[in-house]
């Protein structure tokens, strides 16, 4: 299977977008007055969190479509989305900790968002473990789809349950809680940088999903070829 020209172009676009976002974070966005340079973590933190959520949404939709249509492609999309989501939520948690150390004076608190993000990570690691435990490919896809749906429904409920307690995580977009620590008002250049980061990461997401689907297809071909040789 040859690599498509569109995919090649997308690779380059992704690279440019990410370099652009990085440049904006370092040179365009101002240094926040109270928090200093560490606040710049925020741009990639939000962007990777966004991509992580998007991936898990994709995985759930792919799961539903797989259960309805039973076509292999939706399974590939599901796995691709989950694997990418795990990485990006991990990036979100790590960048968050880096920011929290100086601002909250701790790497970790049992705040709803932090806890939910980590539970979400565990749900999708369980998804990977479930798939690894099943040998029959058709059953693996089916169970994966079911678990992606169940997990995606459970995560917001977890968030909601913990949310009933007070949170100290800052809400920068739409509304602010006076008890939140580390809140700041975004000036236009900050907002622009954040949006560019989000768009850049979204392009990266599409690029990665595409690559992962291609990889999945190639893996299936290899499996078929191996099967033919055995005959």
């Amino acid at each position, binding site marked *: 299977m040859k690599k498509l020209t569109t995919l090649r172009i997308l690779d380059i676009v992704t690279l440019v977008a990410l370099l652009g976002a990085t440049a904006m974070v370092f040179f365009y966005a101002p240094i926040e007055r109270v928090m200093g340079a560490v606040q710049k973590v925020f741009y990639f933190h939000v962007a990777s969190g966004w991509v992580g959520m998007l991936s898990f949404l994709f995985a759930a939709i792919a799961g539903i479509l797989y*259960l309805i249509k039973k076509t292999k492609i939706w399974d590939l999309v599901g796995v691709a989305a989950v694997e990418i989501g795990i990485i990006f939520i991990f990036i979100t948690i790590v960048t968050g900790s880096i920011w929290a150390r100086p601002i909250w004076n701790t790497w970790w608190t049992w705040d709803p968002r932090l806890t939910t993000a980590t*539970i979400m990570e*565990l*749900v999708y690691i*369980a998804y990977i*473990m*479930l798939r*690894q*435990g*099943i*040998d029959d490919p058709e*059953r693996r896809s*089916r*169970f994966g*789809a*079911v*678990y992606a*749906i*169940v*997990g995606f*429904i*459970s995560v917001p*409920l*977890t968030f*909601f*349950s*913990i949310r*009933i307690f007070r949170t100290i995580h800052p809400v920068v977009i739409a509304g602010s809680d006076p008890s939140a620590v580390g809140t700041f008002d975004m000036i236009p250049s900050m907002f622009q940088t954040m949006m560019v980061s989000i768009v850049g990461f979204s392009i990266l997401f599409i690029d990665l999903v595409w690559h992962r689907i291609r990889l999945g297809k190639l893996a299936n071909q290899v499996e078929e070829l191996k099967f033919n040789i055995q005959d």
Partner: protein
Amino acid sequence: MKLIQKGGIKVQPKTSFFKAMFAVVWKDLIAELRGKELISAMLVFALLVIFIFNFALELDPKTRSALTAGILWVTIIFAGNLGLNRSMAVEKDRGCLDGLLLAPVDRTAIYFGKSIANWIFMLIVAMIVLPIYSILYNTNIISPALLLVILLGSEGYVAIGTLLASMAVQARTRDILLPILLFPVILPVLIASVKASSGILSGFPFSDLQTWFNLLIVYDIIFTSVAFMVFDSVVEE
């Protein structure tokens, strides 16, 4: 049973949903009554968990009052996990699951039958653990409100648990897989149950805990209906 002529083949009419469901429940209860494998294992395990907590946390009266709800729920959840794993593994190992699936009944009836049986087992264990806990620590923790929380909480737990257990038993790594699949997903039910229970044990009025009860009911409905919708794809071959 009356036979219906259908395309030249004589087929039996489908057993009604509830009849099939109660047949599955009944089968599990009878099997348990004769073997007493599941409940005895769950019960001994539950008592051991309480004893381990006693030594691990040094439960003097002061710390204990804050921890009772948590200890109870961890005990119930762990024992329940044991029961769920076993109840599906028995079906799988002896080929009973295939037999059940071949039966001309709605497959969701099998799901609900298994869930209700598991639910009953969990409730029996809880009903024995509660008085024992009360005796061991010389406090009466049994109250109608707490029983209601246990009823609602364990329903949500078995609803998703039965679904995931029927997936886990079909995997190579089934012994370790169920808790890993189940615990992160069941967290909302656990949080609401623990919060409601600890509120009841601290003597808060029912109106203060209304939110948690409502949440529990909502979670039960959501989890049961999701499991109900996807169960067919878990058992189809």
